[in-house]
């Protein structure tokens, strides 16, 4: 199961990276970044996973828990991620209303 997760992480990161490198549309770049973010979150949770462990919630019969620290980290990271994405998109909207396009052009600095 871990290897399925690692595979998913690698594909998500690689796909996002490929999008960021090759795409010229800024909206596409941000979508790619969002995908990479999901991949990173998945990677953190996967590293914290212990085979055979249960969710870190005390339920009386103590067995084996997964690591709660990455979960706490990712929990906030997701919320921060969406707000920062929204900020970036509002910048894009402003840029679009000025420039009329989102495509990369030579000489454009951003």
């Amino acid at each position, binding site marked *: 199961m871990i290897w399925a997760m690692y595979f998913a992480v690698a594909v998500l990161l690689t796909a996002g*990276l490929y999008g*960021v*490198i*090759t*795409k*010229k549309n*800024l909206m596409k*770049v941000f979508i790619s970044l969002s995908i990479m973010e999901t991949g990173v979150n998945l990677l953190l949770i996967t590293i914290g996973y212990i085979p055979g462990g249960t969710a870190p919630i005390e339920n009386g019969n103590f067995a084996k828990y997964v690591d709660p620290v990455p979960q706490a980290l990712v929990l906030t990271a997701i919320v921060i991620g969406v707000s920062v994405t929204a900020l970036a998109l509002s910048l894009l909207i402003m840029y679009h209303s000025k420039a009329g396009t989102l495509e*990369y052009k030579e*000489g*454009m*600095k*951003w």
Partner: protein
Amino acid sequence: MLDIILAEILVAAIITFFVGRKLAAIIAMAVSILPLIALLDWASLYGFNIIHLGIEKSISIPIAGVSLNLAITPLGWFFALMIIPLFPAIMLFSYSFYKKNDGFYPFMLLALLSSIGIIMAKDMLTFFLFWEMMSWSSFLLVYRSRDKEAVMSYFIFSSLSAFLIFLGILIIYQQNASLLLSSINIESNAYGVVAIISLIAGFAIKSVLMPLHAWAPYVYSKSDEPFVAFLAGGLSKLGYYGMFLILFILAGAKVLETYFTNLSPNYILAVFGALSAFIATLIAFMQDDMRKLLAYSSIGQLGYIAIGFGIGTPLAVSGALFQAFNHAFFKAVLFLAAGAVAYRTGKWKISELGGVGYRMPFTFMATLFAIFTLAAIPITSGFAAKWLLYESAIDAKYIFVAPIMLIAGVGAFLYSFRILYGVFLGENRYPNIKEAPKSMVAAMFILVMPLLIFLIFPGYMLDMMHDALISGNIATLNHNAFVIETSLASYNTIAVIVALMIALIPAILIYKTRKHRVVDFMDNYLAGELPELYDNKISMHAASRFYKPIEEIIGPYFEPGTMSYYMAIYRGLKAISDAVRKIYTGKAGDYAIYVTLFLLIIMGWFIWM
């Protein structure tokens, strides 16, 4: 006691931030009296039994795990004697100079506090902390001028100075594992030499030695005069305090001599000082702005101190310290006088001033005496100091330095004459102004007093610096109150006075017997030449380009100015930065590639390790 002094100045700095201008000036003056009293008491340590209160002489203040070690050293005491007395007088001056309290007094008090800290520091860390404090408090005072060039140049050069000093301190710490001045022993290897040179360069920035002086003309000519009086008179001496510390007390001069066996780096310091004195003097008498003239004059006069330190014989160092002391007082008086003139007339340009001395006679008298000292007219203490310096240069056979010093000495008279005639005498253009306020006049006369004392008793000055010289392993000169004996000749005040009297007799006779008439200003002897108009004023007047022929000969050589070399460095750096900036293409994809390559390297490292 020392901690009480520092604490009261700090508290007063906070209080003066909130009170009105007059109260602030009085508070600032009052708190600077205590260090002055303490200074007189500490004099009993070094041969002058003036008062004896039994005040503590050293202290360690623990702050945030670091202790600030402060103590009175002979050298610190001597420099305190030339810096601290300026302060109450300047505060007295600014009592009526400022129209409102807008941050002048708190930062002046902080500057005083930090200069006390610098000259009393027992270890390099304390020294550096107070040095930084002095830099930023004086930076904020410069910032009050709101002049872009002044603020930027002061900021950049202060940062450079702090960087160089910090570098030197770090190297010294690396060699000694201790920052206490008493346990520092600079090794004679490449690191030690780099430390010494960077420290001296850092101090030279503060004490406006020639290639590093570029900030001074802007700052001195644009900031408030009371602050500039303290900056030029007091704070610039801190650089020479540091140089003395490094060169003589920490034996840096000997280290340099042993490291460079075939070349005397001290000679280079002397040459820099001589060039500073010579070039700044030449530039000074081309200036029209009174404050800029005084600024270049400061650069020139401070150059003499570097010459003395560079020559390094007992005669030269005594002369240098004497010159430092004189310069502190006469330059403060001159800047204050410029402030007083501007306070009444609102003008700084010599071509727009004239005849101020008729209406402001006391200001004129103080300025006159200060200028006599500046130009080293015989019998003033300035003459004694320069005498020692010239003699030492001749004695040490510095055949390049000595003639330059002599020419610069004449030049000093030329530009001081412009101030005297162009500002205070000549055409009476301001018939309706009043004498400067009493507190200003009082401040200037208080500052003239020490110069008068050492005019009559130059030996006392040597008494005061005796212990400082001993602590720097320099022999002292034989002297009594009136006579200083040197290897070539001896300087005898009484003989000089008598000689001057004798020389004055024919002058007085000529003045009395020769028939003279008061001529109208327009009634000048044009010798057939058409009066050339310059700003609607006739060009023959001293106020407007008096040294035009000299200017036309030497002016072109100074046309580019030192700032242009710094600008060339700036342009070079900018070109390099632009080349580096080519990496940043502005494409998100490119940045992603850089980041990925970096990550790949790290990952590869992890995988194949």
